[in-house]
């Protein structure tokens, strides 16, 4: 019997090639999309799970929220936090810390800029599962001046991975012995590390042996928790501890929070993450699309299978007359569905194999799809195929097996009105999803285009950036570099600053709010005389810093000179936050206290007000910011040029070699830095669009299925109508109108949901578009056109058939 079923199933597939192709390939596309999405989603969700202790590692982070200031969230905390917490909380059994000390590293022959260098506690290898390539990790960082390198870093800096015992230079004067080499970190970790230096080397690396006196928040601190620790309950204890042990009222200024290591990549998104985080919302969005695509594909399968039912009616009748029970037929049709499902899954796996390298490259992630040796993947695929086969085959199976043999053998088709509402509901459901996706992709596209094309308020074109310009020789070298660069005729301006646009505004100083008299924190940018000119930032009042206004220069108060006057330039957001109008701020003075007793302070006079500009990401609101002239802190150099970039960059490289021969150059372009902020977003947007388009396409296949089903069922009616005078157009309009009603209903369902979801999504953006009803109307129109074209073409074929053929049909 099984053989008979299989033969019938295969013949049925082959005799109705068009339907079979739509069915199998529609499902295969759906499955392939779903597999690709799932690979991405599982890869995103699997970050840091490979650490043996991943369930018991947490990180402490800082939430800084002084009254009257913008909240700032850091991934780092103070170096004493680790020890203090382990002593206080029994739930914490160990801690380990990382301090970033980006520096130049290498040999005396060749140095490299290394940003991902961390001074760490020796027990870092107890908590994290780093895989040793060579050396003994348990002892690797117990002595000062020892370093552990990743394989690729060892290869880059020392030309080999067999480097145990070799000496590596950090900067020009710190010698480090390589005591171990670890394998490169896998991609699925929030950690980004090239070199780990022993804790005892901290003073040398920071160039400050008194570093322990500095209570800075620069330390990534991780804890191992006792088994069964309730992290939320533990976190709730922290404020009380801080109030008691640190200072009363400290919770008003900052709080420490705990994060599970496995949650960091998708949910943290704080300042100073070691590498760019993912986004849980992206995972949700892609998971939803994956499920929707699969669901749409299953619905297609159901509709197309029932559409073919009329062709199978006689077979059902004969089988029943010959003694088949309904259960036999149900099994037969379910078996066919499973056959198609497995066939589709096989094709889907082939499709995924074929496009995975391109897809991985596109999304910038190495995804692996190993279903041959990975049992759990293979099992998942088989389970999905079975579930899809059963879900999509169950309705057709019960529908077909319920045919009345007496009627079908007489040539009367079962009218099956009871199933009509279900099929229509499924198409409405599919189209609702397609319309929602159309609306969502349109709004997403418009929003991202809008956000990208906002007037930034500064010029990002034709600017070259140099980093770490003040590490050798400080301000003196900076001036030499600047003068030599300006000698080139294409270079029209050179500016120095502590940060360049697109960076996070993380430095801040205290200010006494002139109205509330509260101490607030306001982000500060150190800039040179030419900064506003190089970036074309417009002044709405006052003047830039200039050599003739020497009194503007910023410097810290000292015991000899506890009170000083400096000049500051503020943006409009700062003026507003200080409680003034733009035209009132000039000449006003702000007090910048440097201690709690009021013994040292600066008086800052506002000498200029600049127009608001989007210094950081466009996702963030423009922050109140003030600028000071402080030549010692020019970490960056922004070089404005005109004409051919290659001759300019050659000149910059030459000048750098002359002025700072021992330090590798770090050169970037401002517009690249700007675009880099949105690369991930662009990729995800493209992916979202692509899969939405696929979902819409598969939904259209579903519509085609139902339309063909309906036209097939109504063949006789079409014939009758033609005999009594209906034209082809009458028939096309008749059938199209029926589907138009379904599409209309789908719109009624889709619009409010899309409105609600997308309104919420838009609230993530500080600068956002309004919800334009035209987007909804346009999506509805597209849906109608798709429906009309699909149904109209089928109806037209049916209507062109000679009526006698239709009437002979039954």
């Amino acid at each position: 019997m099984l053989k008979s079923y299989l033969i019938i199933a295969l013949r049925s597939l082959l005799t109705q090639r068009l339907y079979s192709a739509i069915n199998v390939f529609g499902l295969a596309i759906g499955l392939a999309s779903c597999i690709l999405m799932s690979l991405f989603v599982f890869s995103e969700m699997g970050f840091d799970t490979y650490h043996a202790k991943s369930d018991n590692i947490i990180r402490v982070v800082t939430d800084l929220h002084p009254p009257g200031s913008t909240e700032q969230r850091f991934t780092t905390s103070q170096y004493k936090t680790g020890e203090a917490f382990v002593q206080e909380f029994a739930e914490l059994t160990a801690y380990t810390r990382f301090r970033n000390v980006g520096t130049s590293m290498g040999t005396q022959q060749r140095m490299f800029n290394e940003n991902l260098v961390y001074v760490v506690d020796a027990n870092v290898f107890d908590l994290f599962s780093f895989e040793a390539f060579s050396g003994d990790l348990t002892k690797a960082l117990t002595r000062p001046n020892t370093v552990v390198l990743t394989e690729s870093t060892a290869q880059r800096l020392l030309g080999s991975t067999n480097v145990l015992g070799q000496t590596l230079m950090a900067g020009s004067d710190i010698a480090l012995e390589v005591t171990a080499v670890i394998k490169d970190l896998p991609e699925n970790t929030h950690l980004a590390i090239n070199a780990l230096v022993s804790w005892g080397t901290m003073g040398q690396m920071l160039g400050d042996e008194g570093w322990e006196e500095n209570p800075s928040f620069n330390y990534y601190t991780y804890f191992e928790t006792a088994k069964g620790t309730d992290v939320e309950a533990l976190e709730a204890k922290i404020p009380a501890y801080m109030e008691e042990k640190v200072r009363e009222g400290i919770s008003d200024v900052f709080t420490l929070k705990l994060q599970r290591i496995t949650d960091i990549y998708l949910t943290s998104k704080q300042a100073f993450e070691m590498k760019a985080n993912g986004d849980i919302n992206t995972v949700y969005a892609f998971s939803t699309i994956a499920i929707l695509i699969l669901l749409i594909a299953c619905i297609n399968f159901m509709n197309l299978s029932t559409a073919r039912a009329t062709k199978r009616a006689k077979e059902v009748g004969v089988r029943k007359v010959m003694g088949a029970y309904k259960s036999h037929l149900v099994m037969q049709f379910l078996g066919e569905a499973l056959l198609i499902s497995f066939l589709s899954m096989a094709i889907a796996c082939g499709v995924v194999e074929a496009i995975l390298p391109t897809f991985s490259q596109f999304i910038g992630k190495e995804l692996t799809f190993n279903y041959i040796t990975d049992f759990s993947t293979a099992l998942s695929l088989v389970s999905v195929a079975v579930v899809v086969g059963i879900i999509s085959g169950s309705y057709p199976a019960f529908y077909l097996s319920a045919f009345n043999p007496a009627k079908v053998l007489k040539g009367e088709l079962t009218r099956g009105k009871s199933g009509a509402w279900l099929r229509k509901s499924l198409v409405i459901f599919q189209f609702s999803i397609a319309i929602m996706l159309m609306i969502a992709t349109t709004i997403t596209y418009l929003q991202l285009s809008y956000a990208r094309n906002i007037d930034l308020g500064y010029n990002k074109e034709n600017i070259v950036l140099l980093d770490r310009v003040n590490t050798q020789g400080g301000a003196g070298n900076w001036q030499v570099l600047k003068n030599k660069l300006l000698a080139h005729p294409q270079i029209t301006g050179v500016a120095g600053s502590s940060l360049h646009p697109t960076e996070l505004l993380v430095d801040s100083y205290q200010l006494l709010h002139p109205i509330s008299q509260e101490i607030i924190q306001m982000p500060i940018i150190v800039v040179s005389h030419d900064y506003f000119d190089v970036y074309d930032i417009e002044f709405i009042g006052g003047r830039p810093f200039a050599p003739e206004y020497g009194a503007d220069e910023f410097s810290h108060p000292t015991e000899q000179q506890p009170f000083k006057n400096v000049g500051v330039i503020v943006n409009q957001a700062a003026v507003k936050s200080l409680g003034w109008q733009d035209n009132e701020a000039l000449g006003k003075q702000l007090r910048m206290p440097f201690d709690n007793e009021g013994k040292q302070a600066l008086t800052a006079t506002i000498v200029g007000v600049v127009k608001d500009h989007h210094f950081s990401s466009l996702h963030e609101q423009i922050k109140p910011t003030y600028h000071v002239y402080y030549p010692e802190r020019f970490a960056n150099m922004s070089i404005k040029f005109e004409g051919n970039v290659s001759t300019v960059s050659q000149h910059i490289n030459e000048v750098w070699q002359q002025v700072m021969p021992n330090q590798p150059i770090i050169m970037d372009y401002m517009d690249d830095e700007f675009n880099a902020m949105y690369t991930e977003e662009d990729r995800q947007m493209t992916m979202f669009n692509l899969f939405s388009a696929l979902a819409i396409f598969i939904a259209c296949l579903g519509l085609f299925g139902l339309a063909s089903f309906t036209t097939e069922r109504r063949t006789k009616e079409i014939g009758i109508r033609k005999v009594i005078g209906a034209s082809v157009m009458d028939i096309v309009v008749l059938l199209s109108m029926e589907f138009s009603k379904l599409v209309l209903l789908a719109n009624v369902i889709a619009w409010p949901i899309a409105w609600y979801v997308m309104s919420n999504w838009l609230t993530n953006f500080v600068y956002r578009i309004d919800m334009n009803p035209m987007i909804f109307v346009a999506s509805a129109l597209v849906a109608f056109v798709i429906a009309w074209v699909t149904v109209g073409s089928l109806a037209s074929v049916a209507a062109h058939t000679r009526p006698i053929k239709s009437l002979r049909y039954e």
Partner: protein
Amino acid sequence: MLALKNIVKLYRTESVETRALDKINIHVGKGEFVAIMGQSGCGKSTLLNTIGMLDQPSEGHYYFDGEDVANYSERRLSDLRKSNIGFIFQSFNLIDELTVFENIELPLIYQKVAKVERQQRVMDVLEKVGIAHRKDHYPQQLSGGQQQRVAVGRALICRPKLILADEPTGNLDSKNGEEVMEMLTKLNQEGATIVMVTHSDAHATYANRTIHLFDGNVVTEQMQEAYCA
């Protein structure tokens, strides 16, 4: 009214050619009631479909009201059909989703007749075929005889010059069959030209003339006695 000259209808499959009608010559005058008889597969329905312009002949000429329509396009045939010919089928061919009233009204909608006139004409026809009391029912709610009355009503609604009936009593019991035949006779007496395919000798006697087909050929044409006299 209509004349068929050397009409041939071939059906071809990959390996077989079937000659359903073989050089048929028939003439039907205005106001005639013609019955077509013959064994199953002799070409009766093919002939009726050709006369009704539902099928085109492979060869020959078909004159309808003096015009040779054998090579007309589907669209022209459709136009000609809807204003001149009414059909009655053995299986009624009513549209299940429409009520009795709507089924009869449908041809008028396709002829773009105004709503008020449509309603009047449908009511007249409903009265005429004796089914007015069932006007809001759906076909499945009616007996076979009632359904065929609706089909007759629908065939009449456009006041066709020609009514074609394909075994109109084939699905009915004898009583209902007689009633339908009475109705057709009455229509014929009122001036309608009727061509009817039937298996029933008794029902063929209602016609003025009977054409017997065999293997696609006309074998005999026989006037009813009443008309021979």
